């Protein structure tokens, strides 16, 4: 075993560009998934049947098919079906966002319905509209309840982003494979990469916890 290999010949910075890419794709994908999650959640909670149906179909498709399959369908499928010129990393972000959005929608919906309906009534009785009450009163309180499961989702997404290597995106796992193809130090590089994922995800975990603590209101069941 020669673990120092990852620090020689510019290998370290080569892997670091991969790590930076992983962080970028994950976070961008996560922002997109929050947006999609919010839309799907409100779709499910909507009074309109058509909104509920569309949301349910979205959810069942993206939750029930593997991310890897979705990735290749978007990356290889779009050019074939619609002659859309696909960029690997753009496809990657979109696929991550759409896949994770299905899960995030359930986190958001669960948190919203867990807020006592008296909060909505109190807001409405003061003269706030439904949307204003949702935005100013219900969502901020629901957000705290979302934090733990959202942190989970972000961590999942970080790990899932390694699948982007299959559509040629130069993220951490692909950089590692490229490196191994050159120096054949399989175990050394994979272990180092595993540690990098581990550290990154624990940083996300800590940020989630700090945020949760910051948003404490004293009403938590702890």
């Amino acid at each position, binding site marked *: 075993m020669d673990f120092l290999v990852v620090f020689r010949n510019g290998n370290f910075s080569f892997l670091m560009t991969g790590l930076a890419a992983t962080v970028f794709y994950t976070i961008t994908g996560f922002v997109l998934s929050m947006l999609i999650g919010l839309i799907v959640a409100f779709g499910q909670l909507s009074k309109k049947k058509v909104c509920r149906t569309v949301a349910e179909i979205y959810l069942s498709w993206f939750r029930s098919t593997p991310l890897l399959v979705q990735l290749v369908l978007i990356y290889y499928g779009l050019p074939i079906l619609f002659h859309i010129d696909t960029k690997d990393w753009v496809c990657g972000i979109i696929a991550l966002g759409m896949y994770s959005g299905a899960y995030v929608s359930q986190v958001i919906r669960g948190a919203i319905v867990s807020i006592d309906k008296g909060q909505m009534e109190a807001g*409405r*009785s*003061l003269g*706030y509209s439904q949307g204003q009450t949702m935005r100013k009163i219900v969502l901020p*309180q629901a957000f705290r309840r979302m934090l733990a499961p959202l942190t989970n989702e972000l961590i999942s997404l970080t790990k899932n982003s390694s699948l982007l290597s299959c559509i040629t995106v130069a993220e951490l796992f692909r950089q590692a494979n490229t490196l191994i193809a050159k120096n054949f130090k399989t175990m050394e590089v994979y272990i180092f990469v595993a540690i990098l994922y581990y550290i990154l995800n624990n940083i996300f975990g800590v940020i989630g916890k700090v945020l949760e603590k910051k948003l404490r209101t004293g009403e938590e069941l702890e």
Partner: protein
Amino acid sequence: MSRKMIEIHDLEKFYGAHHVLKKINLDVEEGEVVVIIGPSGSGKSTLLRSINYLEEYQDGTIIIDGEYIGRTMKNGKSVPMEEKKLNAMRQKVGMVFQSFNLFGHKTVIQNIMMAPMDLKKENRADAREEAEELLRKVGLPQKANVMPSSLSGGQKQRIAIARALAMKPKVMLFDEPTSALDPEMVGEVLKVMKELAKSGMTMVIVTHEMNFAKSIADKVVVLEEGSIIEQGPPEQIFDHPQNERTKAFVNMVFTKDVVE
């Protein structure tokens, strides 16, 4: 002769096939305190919550301070009014809930300042000054900067009253405001309500506190199975009820009090 503040006209409410409120007609004058009593399931809370259309009803109209709220008349028919108008009208009607419903993510003073700033576009300094004044009124000036979760039930309810008053409503609705409180906290809330009544606020109250009802009400309304079976001054309702069923109900509640 004082003028009418609330006019409920031929209100009909159904839950599916269940007829919850049957042709309710009720007037409340400016400054009047009306207490609604009746057996559980008689529709008291539903009637109260209809006044600001938190509870939707299917027919009839309610007028507050000369303007329709909830439903309006169109070609001689009662139809739901547009949302924007309803929201504006609700600002005239303060509501206090059994379960307080303070906003858990805001401090006490933010709870009070929020709606005037958001909806009446009051500036922060004015809103704060008014909120502090209201906190003094309900006897909790020292709690301005704490979170609602640290308050007792009685304190929460007093803050909820202050929050509703911050919008300078014409009418205050109280939906069993002391039912969720420990007995020793009931008094502090009733005291605030009494002072409010004395200040000339028009109030409609649903309560199980019969002695309180007797002492604060100008008019008592008895509801049974969705109909008003009797209304009148508290002396009449409690001491000389005209209706046999009122008599039975009043007897039952007061006997229960004695047994307890």
